């Protein structure tokens, strides 16, 4: 069965570059990953060429899964994760997207706490320059019986030019009553006072910006497979934007 091409009226594709989606249509089947009960799974995704990744991830009881994402390449790059957590499962997402020119980059997640005692933690950092658009659409759904769910969505975007766009839409759908679901989303610009402080010590403007952006994305890749490669590629991309 082929799904119809989405449009911007479709919520999960609201900020997408539909022309780019159409060019890639029909999309290959999503990748299905099952982490068995008690298992341990890690995946590092570096999106460098403008592709759409769709992953269905099911995390069995007591299992852990960590996904790290660096979304930096191509005119349109999309990472879409549909995650289902069973009893006591743990999901971690650490994602950085860095866009310039007219790039459209997005991370779209649906994290379903289907059973009790599961934890999920999503950290997303976006840096956007020129006319780039970066979006995070993240839905956390907590099923009726999924008590003691603990979920965090920590979403921050840094806009380097007033012409760039950041969208952040953390969303909660909770049907249980004993849960903790924290979400925060901020969009900001580099602190001008801090930039002047760094410049007054001798750092050229681009170096000062790069240092602050490095701090902004720092920590997201901690513990990632290929952490060094992530960091190097993120810094190289940041260096090209400032």
């Amino acid at each position, binding site marked *: 069965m082929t799904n119809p091409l989405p449009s911007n009226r479709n919520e999960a594709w609201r900020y997408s570059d539909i022309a780019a989606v159409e060019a890639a249509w029909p999309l290959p089947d999503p990748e299905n990953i099952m982490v068995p009960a008690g298992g341990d799974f890690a995946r590092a995704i570096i999106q460098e060429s403008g592709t759409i990744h769709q992953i269905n991830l099911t995390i069995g009881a007591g299992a852990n899964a960590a996904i790290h994402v660096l979304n930096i390449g191509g005119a349109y790059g999309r990472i879409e994760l549909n995650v289902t957590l069973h009893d006591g499962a743990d999901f971690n997402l650490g994602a950085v997207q860095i866009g310039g020119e007219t790039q459209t980059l997005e991370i779209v997640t649906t994290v379903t706490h289907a059973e009790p005692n599961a934890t999920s933690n999503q950290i997303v950092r976006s840096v956007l320059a020129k006319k780039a658009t970066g979006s995070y659409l993240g839905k956390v759904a907590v099923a009726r019986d999924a008590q003691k769910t603990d979920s965090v969505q920590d979403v921050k975007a840094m806009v380097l030019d007033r012409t760039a766009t950041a969208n952040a839409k953390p969303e909660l759908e909770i049907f249980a009553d004993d849960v903790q679901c924290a979400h925060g989303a901020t969009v900001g610009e580099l602190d001008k006072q*801090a930039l002047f402080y*760094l*410049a*007054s*010590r*001798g*750092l050229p403007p681009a170096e000062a910006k790069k240092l602050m952006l490095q*701090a*902004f994305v720092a920590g997201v890749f901690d513990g990632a497979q290929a952490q060094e490669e992530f960091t190097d590629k993120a810094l190289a991309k940041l260096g090209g934007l400032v």
Partner: protein
Amino acid sequence: MLQIENLHATVGDKPILKGLTLTLNAGEVHAIMGPNGAGKSTLSYVIGGRPGYEVTQGSVTFNGQDLLDMDPHERAAAGLFLGFQYPVEIPGVSNVQFLREAANAQRKLREQEPLSGGEFLKLAKEKAALLKMDMEMLKRPVNVGFSGGEKKRNEMVQMGILDPALAILDETDSGLDIDALRVVGDGINSIMRAPDKAVLLITHYQRLLDYVQPDFVHVLADGRIVKTGGAELAKQLEAEGYEAIAA
């Protein structure tokens, strides 16, 4: 070393400096005192090149170069250090990393070889010890979670590492307890008291001047220097207040 001629500056169209003239020679320590709103901090920011502070008239010359024509980082590389009244907190950026990059950026502009990691750490340890600051604090993010006094001490450690020819220190004494004041005073003397260096201390109070003896004291009021004297002028100000002197 520094010549300020008839300097006029505005902040958001509001005139703050209104014809300030001041000369600092190598080997001298000058103090600028004055009431709130006189333009003391504006003077330091104009010399440092902070965006938003616009010079409308006059000139600032530093070792023969037109300072106002240079970007803030170029001023630093030319040998200027600005000690902030309110040092900025920068989460995530470690002091040592930032200072090493800053020191090496300055050296690059001066066409000097960069300091290696080892050379830099040795220098940083030496200056931290001078200011009695724990090396662990230097590894932490810039000024984050530091007390007011620790921030000022950190400014002085930075000054020691960057080794400027001219330091403009804006209320470096505020927020310091008596012991810290002595440490900072000793630090300023040891780092900046040299025949080829000069210091401009901006302060409200005489107490820092007990530790760092100024050669000249200037009273700044309503955007210009209204009186100049020796160290005794600071004591007279402390005893009689600005109004009596500046009027």
